[in-house]
């Protein structure tokens, strides 16, 4: 206990020192809110410290971090009523449309287009991929700039693949190839599962399946449910095949990751952000290779997780300072810190240069897989009026029944679409 107290006091002193170290001539203070407290130390605080060193007239002050993107969104929604929103807010990828439709009519969110224009088209082209900018653009307004981004990728146990006569250099690319490979792995190795994708908790991977077949969840204006089409049916059929043909266990991402790390799973579909933890948990017991997410159609896409930096302050002076900070966060130097601290993909083109992340990626090719998926990345979809959690609860129950064969993919998909329509219309 004494040690804990000593630790706490030390931590408190450090924190106090960090706060008081701000230069006396600070003129502009920016209040910042991000989600996931664990990320503070990994990159938010180091980035803020580096920024304040270069900009002694701007002070970055973090408010208490939100538990997750959803809670952060709800907190901002509450604060918007009393005009106490933070100056900079990191919004979850699937929540930006809701944030914008809530704050834009009240003039509580800033369009970043004028700031980009001011920097000049050449500068914008040099730094940001058009795809990256597009993620944060709604109806012509650039409400957010992607700061953290991740796509789902595939993790392969090369040892299990070899035992099944598969070449870890020739990774499967499509759903059909994945299912074939998984079946072979399961047959060749006793006591392992072939493949797992998390359909038990959170709808990111289900969306990824629909998108990989070229589908979308709803129409761009979010009024019509669209995943009941051919692409959705293919995705639902694949869910059934995964359970029927591969014997996929219906477990969440954590449980799947543990199983993969224990060497009892051939192929695991997870976030690119899992790489850091995965390396540690495997501890050299087998060889890990990563590959791209299985595709079902040529025009397939992938939903991007992560967050946008948004500027909520309406004070012109603060807006200018906030833009400087956002620019720094999404600069190659800022992205280098972020990527190494998280495993996310860089959102700045220049970060791939050798002096930033180029060399690192050359040495750690597994970290690079997600990057190759940038061209097909789209925003992680959020259902209107923050209904995503409820929509998913209904979807996941039906998906389970599709998987287990209790309902056919055709009927199950109809049921899912109906429930989604009903919830969205509430």
């Amino acid at each position, binding site marked *: 206990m004494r040690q804990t107290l000593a630790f706490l006091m030390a931590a408190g002193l450090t924190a106090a020192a960090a706060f008081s170290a701000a230069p006396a001539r600070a003129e502009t203070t920016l209040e910042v809110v991000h989600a996931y*407290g*664990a990320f503070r130390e990994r990159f938010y605080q180091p980035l803020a410290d580096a920024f304040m060193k270069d900009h002694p007239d701007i002070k970055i002050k973090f408010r*208490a971090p*939100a*538990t997750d993107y959803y809670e952060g969104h709800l*907190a901002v929604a509450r604060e918007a009523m009393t005009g106490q929103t933070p100056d900079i807010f990191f919004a979850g990828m699937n929540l930006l449309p809701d944030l914008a439709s809530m704050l834009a009519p009240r003039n509580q969110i800033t369009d970043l287009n004028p700031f980009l224009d001011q920097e000049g088209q050449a500068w914008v082209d040099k730094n940001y991929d058009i795809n990256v900018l597009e993620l944060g653009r709604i109806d012509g307004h650039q409400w957010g700039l992607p700061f953290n981004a991740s796509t789902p990728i595939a993790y392969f146990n090369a040892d299990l693949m070899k035992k099944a006569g598969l070449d870890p250099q020739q990774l499967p690319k499509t759903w059909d190839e994945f299912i074939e490979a998984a079946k072979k792995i399961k047959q060749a190795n006793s006591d392992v599962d072939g493949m797992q994708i998390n359909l038990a908790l959170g709808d990111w991977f289900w969306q990824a399946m629909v998108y990989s077949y070229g589908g979308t969840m709803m129409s761009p204006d979010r009024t019509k449910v669209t995943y009941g089409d051919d692409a959705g049916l293919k995705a639902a059929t694949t869910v059934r095949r995964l359970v029927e043909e591969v014997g996929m266990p219906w477990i969440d991402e954590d449980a799947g*990751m543990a199983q993969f*790390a224990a060497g009892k799973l051939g192929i695991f579909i997870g976030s690119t952000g899992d790489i850091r*933890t995965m390396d540690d948990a495997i*501890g050299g017991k087998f060889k890990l290779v990563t590959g791209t997410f299985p595709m079902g159609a040529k025009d397939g896409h992938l939903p991007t997780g992560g967050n946008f930096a948004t500027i909520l302050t309406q004070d012109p002076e603060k807006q200018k300072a906030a833009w400087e900070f956002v620019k720094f966060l999404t600069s190659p130097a800022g992205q280098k810190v972020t990527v190494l601290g998280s495993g996310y993909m860089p959102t700045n083109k220049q970060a791939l240069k050798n002096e930033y992340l180029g060399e690192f990626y050359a040495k750690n090719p597994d970290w690079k897989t997600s990057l190759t998926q940038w061209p097909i990345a789209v925003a992680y979809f959020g259902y209107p009026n923050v209904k995503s959690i409820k929509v998913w609860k209904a979807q996941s129950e039906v998906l389970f029944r599709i998987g287990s064969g209790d309902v056919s993919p055709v009927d199950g998909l109809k049921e899912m679409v109906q429930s989604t329509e009903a919830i969205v219309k509430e």
Partner: protein
Amino acid sequence: MTSAKLDVSTQELRAPSLAPSLAAAVRHGLLLIFAAIILLPFAWMILAAVKDPSDIFSDPFSLDPAKLRAVENFSKALTAAPMGLFMLNSLIVVVGVLSVQLITSVAAAYALAQLKFRGQTLLFGLVLFALCIPVQVPALPMYIALAKLGLLNSYFALMFPWFFSAFAIFLFRQHFRTYPQEIINAARIDGFTEIEIVLRLIVPSALPAIAAFSVFSVTAHWNDLYWPLIVVNVTEKMTAPLGLLNFQSAEGVSYGPLMAAATIITSPLVCVFLLARRYFVEGVTMTGVK
């Protein structure tokens, strides 16, 4: 139910006299099997917290002293997650809740047990009514009120619903009632104020009950997840169980640090339990008094 009674090791249920040693062996054999089941998760948790993460699942119940990772895991749990801060928050909440509970409950219980006032019957009836109300019932309106007042994410929000404890008032009233009226009257004649009577006569006489209730309250609020999950959505104010839940979702699965964190938040209460076993047992038995 006094502890003296509990500690008497009675022999009525000694197994058949024909083969006492065999019966004893069966008895202890069964008990050891149950004990092993009960202790299994604790063993796994502690082992996972100190061993190499790559061995956690491949070799769950072994320990290779050459590959101990205890320092790394525990320091990561304390830095990456601020488990230290979460524990401090829990400590503040637990102590704050208990202090207010004791003050309000002792006062009310004394009034109910030894004083006379209008509305006494009604108040006691309300206390009995409140005994049957689980906290999840008033949670929603209280959340709305706290949100409207801008009090979410505060220690006050974490503690407020617990300031009133029907169980404490009921328990203390039962104990205070047994205190002889004559002594109280004598004290009054000697010039004791009512507050002095409570502090110098009543409370000391009911210390075992107060200690047992305290242990009860501390356990309940240290372990509570439901209410903190509702009123706290920032890391700074998280209590230990909520912090652990959040650590799990933010960190992905680093079992070593995760299990180290689980061990850290479980250990204070287990230590308190081992030191104050008597009061835990009495606290449980006192729930049976009603």
